């Protein structure tokens, strides 16, 4: 028989009253069987998976929020696209009347709606950017947009550092920005490249080829390849970013998507009769372009990406990556946080790569960002 010592058992750390800062020795990974936490075999059903249902109930009760921004020149069908995506009249299709002057400066307009489907409530905010790229001199026309995005991050940050915080901070940050590329058929224009370069660092950008019904299928393919080549040359990482793929399944799925970006889309909010079915489409003299038909355009792919499969992912990347990057820059420049005696563990700010969701993966975007960090 051996007597048990007061401390020093095999797997545990005895925390005495003098040692309040020690936590249990487990790393942050959530993958099972990390070397220091022993996996336990359960001999029977406990019921842990019921927590998933609890999560679902909680989420449904709280509702979801989604903020989307559409950027592109006038006449590319942005408002129609939003209406088609969410199958409702979000915007009145902006048709410029004869008397209305073209907007002289870039004005952002935003509208919020609550839509519900099968018990799931979604508060959707759509921000439009009329006047983008319409002037003769389009220099710095991206500034209001970047300013708007930063303003939303700032708003969230201010809410987060309050002493008495709300239970649920209203999320107005832009989760996704759809960029409409005009269907020239050649390649990306300098304005597009400039804008995409700047925006990809702060927000998830999904480029689409607008009004794709003016291109044939072959022209679309060439255009798409050229755009992909342009994006690669200028190191523009559009959503879904390669560096945020979490595991092999994600990578396979996202590679397929990345292959088809930018989607060639057509928007329509009128219904027509085709073969006895009512479909959304554009009626022309030479035929009806069905929006939901994959053979005609890639709108279903865009809709599935944005809404059905990757909506939560968009929000997560915005929250975990883009917002954190903004926060780091903001706190570094204005010393918002107390950094004096009493705050023991506050991290120093090394000039290293910015946040990525998986700290173990090297990030191409980080290298690009750290290059820009030196410019601050």
């Amino acid at each position: 028989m051996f007597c048990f010592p007061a401390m020093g058992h095999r797997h545990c750390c005895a925390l005495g009253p003098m040692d309040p800062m020690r936590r249990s020795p487990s790393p942050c990974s959530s993958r099972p069987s990390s070397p220091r936490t022993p996996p336990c075999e359960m001999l029977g059903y406990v019921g842990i998976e019921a927590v998933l249902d609890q999560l679902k109930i909680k989420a449904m009760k709280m509702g979801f929020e989604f903020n989307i921004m559409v950027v592109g020149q006038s006449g590319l069908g942005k408002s129609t696209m939003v209406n088609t995506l969410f199958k409702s009249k979000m915007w009145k299709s902006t048709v410029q009347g004869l008397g209305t002057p073209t907007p002289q400066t870039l004005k952002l307009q935003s509208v919020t709606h609550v839509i519900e489907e099968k018990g799931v409530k979604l508060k959707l905010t759509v921000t439009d950017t009329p006047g983008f790229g319409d002037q003769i001199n389009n220099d710095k026309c991206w500034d209001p947009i970047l300013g708007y995005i930063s303003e939303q991050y700032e708003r969230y940050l201010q809410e987060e550092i309050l002493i008495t915080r709300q239970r649920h901070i209203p999320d107005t940050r832009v989760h996704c920005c759809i960029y409409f590329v005009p269907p020239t058929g050649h390649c990306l224009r300098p304005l597009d490249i400039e804008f995409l370069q700047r925006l990809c660092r702060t927000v998830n950008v999904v480029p689409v080829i607008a009004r794709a019904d003016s291109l044939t299928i072959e022209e679309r393919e060439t255009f798409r390849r050229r755009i992909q080549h342009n994006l690669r040359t200028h190191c523009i990482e559009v959503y879904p970013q390669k560096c945020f793929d979490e595991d092999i399944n994600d990578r396979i799925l996202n590679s397929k998507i990345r292959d088809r970006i930018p989607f060639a889309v057509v928007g329509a909010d009128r219904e027509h009769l085709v073969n006895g079915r009512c479909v959304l489409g554009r009626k022309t003299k030479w035929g009806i372009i069905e929006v939901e038909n994959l053979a005609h355009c890639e709108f279903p792919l865009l809709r599935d990406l944005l809404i059905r499969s990757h909506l939560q992912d968009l929000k997560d990347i915005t929250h975990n990556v883009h917002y954190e990057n903004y926060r780091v820059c903001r706190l570094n420049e204005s010393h918002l946080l107390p950094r004096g005696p009493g705050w023991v563990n506050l991290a120093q700010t090394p000039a290293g790569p910015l946040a990525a969701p998986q700290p173990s993966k090297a990030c191409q975007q980080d290298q690009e960002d750290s290059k820009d960090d030196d410019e601050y």
Partner: protein
Amino acid sequence: MIGTCSAVSCAVAPVAAAPVAALADAGAMAATDIARQVGEGCRTVPLAGHVGFDSLPDQLVNKSVSQGFSFNILCVGETGLGKSTLMDTLFNTKFEGEPATHTQPGVQLRSNTYDLQESNVGLKLTIVSTVGFGDQINKEDSYKPIVEFIDAQFEAYLQEELKIRRVLHAYHDSRIHACLYFIAPTGHSLKSLDLVTMKKLDSKVNIIPIIAKSDAISKSELTKFKIKITSELVSNGVQIYQFPTDDESVAEINGTMNAHLPFAVIGSTEELKIGNKMMKARQYPWGTVQVENEAHCDFVKLREMLIRVNMEDLREQTHSRHYELYRRCKLEEMGFKDTDPDSKPFSLQETYEAKRNEFLGELQKKEEEMRQMFVQRVKEKEAELKEAEKELHEKFDRLKKLHQDEKKKLEDKKKCLDDEVNAFKQRKTAAELLQSQGSQAGGSQTLKRDKEKKKAPHHPTQAGSVAGSCCKLPNCMVKGAMFSGLL
């Protein structure tokens, strides 16, 4: 053609029959400042078809599954109440650990983390147990290590949250989500240690009181015991965790369970054959207590409530209520406010600058004080030293004077002696002269010599001193006496 799906009205203004018209004025807003219509004024728009975001909860759940969950339980209770056994029974597994002795000098907390996997859900379970609770003679400070531990977890999370570069989504949450308080089955009432500890913990953690080893109490005593406990808790203002009743799907079951608090539980990891099934039970000579029999104990209820129904709510309460309270108190203690009296929002920066200046001012003041004190001390020391110096001088003077006096006296004495010596010498020489004269010229010269000799040494002695005092030689004395008789 706009088909109507379910439209839930949340807007203050009624949803117009022609949403298009309503959109027109809801649409355009001001230039670069955008006033968002959040909450009120939000229009619900009917959908014309299936959009597909009803998969959103599934997307969310999938994300959470891939990230994994963490759940932390704190078991507070006296040694020997069956805390470890109950944990083993709850999670249907054998956790590592040896039983503690009763001889602990103080209360300590032992924390273990385990990875549990059930179908596709991975749970990182942390069980913290008190060691030595209630074993000391003086239990006044027993609650302190527990409170400090809970605060330390909050502090760690707060530090992580306030970091500049932080990884909150991958952070292993170590905050305690549920505290199971084990009440000894005395059958009477709560011990004062229990009341004190629970009162200290109720604002920091969700407390679920349970009656441990409840097979020691009979059914009738149990109901009385439960009533007594709940009334004591209420009268002392202890807020225990209430299962939430605001969501319809769980309101009913939670409501009934709330009435059964505190749960009377039994833990056992031994399996016995009862009927034709293997069940967890405890065997006594008078019968067998089945753990999972609802008529025998409330173990099933505890498991239901803790894990299957309310785990998410426990985590949420910890984060949104207890942690926020801790954060607020901590930040206010540091001196940060949200708004100043003019109700302008403070930035943390201003507050920080103000605090910093205040701190620097205090430092300066302290420095001044110290400097002044230093100067004063120096002065005092100086005065002291001067005093001492003066004293020394005085002493020195005195000694010198003494020395001089002594010297003078000695000189006087020396002079006297010298005079005497001189006188003696003179007389000696005179006497010798006389002798030599006497021996040379008979008697008269000797007489003369003697006379001279007599005269010479006697001159100084004419004052009256006896000749014998100057001249020590006996011959001389005799001759001197003779010749003085002759004169």
